[in-house]
């Protein structure tokens, strides 16, 4: 396996901490940048994320043009607080209301493409306790400064020492190491160079995101990588070390359901690519057993694996963003760059 990608396309956030340079380069390239935060009951963390990003990357350095919150129907004060701190807040169900309604992070990210105005979209999870503006500027750095890079993912945590005074994380969380990495190793060894494929922080050019389908649930991160890889190759991707990210810890059963959705996405992609052929239909229920009064009772979760089509195929979107029928020059340049 060629591992030159990890050496060439792996960055540290400190390489992009010159915010003057990023702002100047963004202006020179006449780019618009949107930050999108998908939410569901994030009242404890949402204000902090908006406030720090607004202060550092809008007021002090004109890097972000807007902060968009797409909410899945929070029952706490998420939307109210986000509005109070100056974000543009939308309920996912109210965006493209004529379409069938789904709930999920992928759904919010997909609909954000319709709402956001940016040429570049930065997606950050809204539950980051140790939020810092590096989470956004580090993802933007490679996109603004390197013409060949169109999609950037974050990695962080689990540091190991490499050489003198240098530390780097070794990999991801439990689902990454137990599900994704074995799958990538089996089918796409090159992709194992992406250290944390499930990280919820990534940014990319609109032309990429609009051209690929979005699973509505947990499979979104995996599908983005697989589709971008398949369409444009690994070289349009980069990863950035964000140092440390404090997550909300999830229990094993929740991770089990996440793994189910990811496997579902992965297998569907493999089928589409004609790489595997299943004789029978796959089930869409995750079954977990509980011991209740000395009897095992199943908890059954239906995970349908719905996917939204590429946004560019939605007529309302094409109209709003005046998209022609043919590939845009950027699409072509990406294809050319990867050939």
């Amino acid at each position: 396996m060629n591992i030159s990608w990890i050496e060439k396309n792996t960055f540290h956030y400190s390489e992009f901490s010159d915010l003057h340079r990023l702002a100047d380069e963004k202006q020179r390239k006449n780019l618009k940048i949107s930050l999108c935060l998908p939410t569901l009951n994030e009242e404890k963390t949402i204000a902090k994320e908006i406030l720090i990003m607004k202060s550092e990357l809008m007021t002090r350095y004109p890097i972000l043009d807007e902060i968009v919150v797409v909410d899945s129907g929070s029952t706490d004060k998420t939307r109210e607080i986000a509005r109070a701190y100056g974000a543009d807040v939308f309920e996912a169900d109210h965006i493209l209301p004529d379409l069938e309604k789904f709930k999920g992070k992928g759904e919010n990210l997909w609909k954000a493409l319709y709402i956001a105005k940016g040429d570049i979209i930065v997606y950050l999870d809204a539950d980051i306790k140790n939020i810092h503006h590096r989470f956004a500027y580090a993802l933007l750095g490679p996109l603004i400064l390197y013409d060949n890079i169109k999609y950037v993912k974050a990695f962080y945590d689990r540091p190991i020492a490499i050489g003198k005074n240098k530390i780097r994380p070794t990999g991801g969380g439990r689902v990454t190491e137990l599900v994704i990495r074995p799958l990538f190793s089996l089918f796409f060894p090159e992709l194992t160079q992406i250290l944390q494929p499930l990280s919820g922080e990534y940014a990319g050019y609109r032309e990429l995101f609009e051209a690929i389908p979005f699973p509505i649930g947990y499979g979104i991160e995996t599908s983005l990588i697989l589709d971008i890889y398949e369409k444009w190759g690994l070289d349009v991707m980069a990863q950035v070390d964000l140092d440390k990210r404090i997550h909300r810890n999830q229990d094993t059963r929740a991770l089990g359901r996440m793994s189910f959705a990811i496997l579902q996405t992965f297998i569907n992609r493999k089928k589409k690519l004609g790489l595997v052929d299943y004789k029978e239909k796959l089930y869409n229920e995750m079954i977990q057993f509980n011991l209740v009064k000395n009897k095992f009772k199943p908890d059954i979760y239906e995970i349908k694996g719905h996917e939204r089509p590429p946004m560019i195929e939605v007529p309302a979107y094409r109209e709003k963003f005046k998209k022609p029928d043919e590939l845009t020059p950027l699409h072509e340049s990406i294809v050319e760059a990867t050939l």
Partner: protein
Amino acid sequence: MADYLDKLPGFVDTIRSMKETIITNIVLIGQIPAPTFNEKRRTSLFMERLAEFQVDECTTDGYRNPIGIIKGTRESKPPIFVVAHLDTIWGKDIDHYYTIQENSITGAGIMDNSVGVGILVSLPEIFRKLNLSFESDIVLAGVIQSLGKGNLRGIRHLLKTWASPIRGAVCIESAPLGRLNYYADGMIRCEVDCNISTDSGSDHKFKPNAILVLNEVINQILKLRLPQKPRSRVIIGKTSGGHMHGVIAYDATLGFEIQSNSDKMVRSIFNSIKDIIEGTSHEYEVDLKLKTLSNIHATKLTFNHPLVKSTVAVMKKLDLTPISGPSESELSILLSRNIPAVTLGITRGDNYHQQNATVEIEPIFKGIAQIIGVIMAIDNGVCDEHQLD
């Protein structure tokens, strides 16, 4: 005087328009744990933020107190110090991540002293936004090793090594808004360690219990007759000891402070407590060690000192009611070196020294305007040619 006072209410709105930057500074700094003696990471961020806000000089002194200097317009005028302590009572293992709601910030250390430090690093940007310049240099000092065993070492060192005179100083504390400290009690902070030998060959027929021995010390301290004048008190502030519920405690520690507005009385009470400890040690045949962690002298500005009068005027202009009391903090060290100084609070809040401490956001803007008003008063010369009593 009225000239700058009249501007203050108008400042509040401008400061409020910088809400995002001010809260960002409070949060970014407050989320870095900084227990006393471990303030290095917070110091680095403090410097980084000051550098980003383009102060004229940004450095650390020989004791690693981080300092930013905004140059004044008249070199002949001595500098004005604005000081906030960086350290907190919380260890690194405590969750320092803050929660922001519509009008509050919650988290460990927010009331002591994340708001204070966040405001300190925001001042250069606030001055710029308000289009303010001063005759004196403004020295923004985040001082380390202030609390507990830190014994105000940071500020002591900073002032000891600062070569030139200092025109006046403002100490910033997170809360409460309305506090006006201009005098400091004399204080001795002590710790008593009780250790009982675990050797089987020990002479005791029945092993004494370290916690009970210290309990006896506490009982005897409580029996001391303390005068109402000079105003004096002993605060039993900390205890720890033992290892398991079913095992006699072999070690225990008691922390207390003696406070009085008379240094002589502090010393006298200290001697009485020392006698109690020696007597208990002898009676119970245990090892009791008394350590002095901090000793500061009583010192004050009078209420009619121009700095105090001006501060009261600033507060009243902003519809704040001054509440006075003694403060054993950076203020003590500044006053003891004949530097006119006051300590002011920035906002209101709850759960002061708890992990879920919460501050209100809205009062912060008035709290900052008040600090700026006092800096302007000092820059106008209210501290010039006045010595401390």
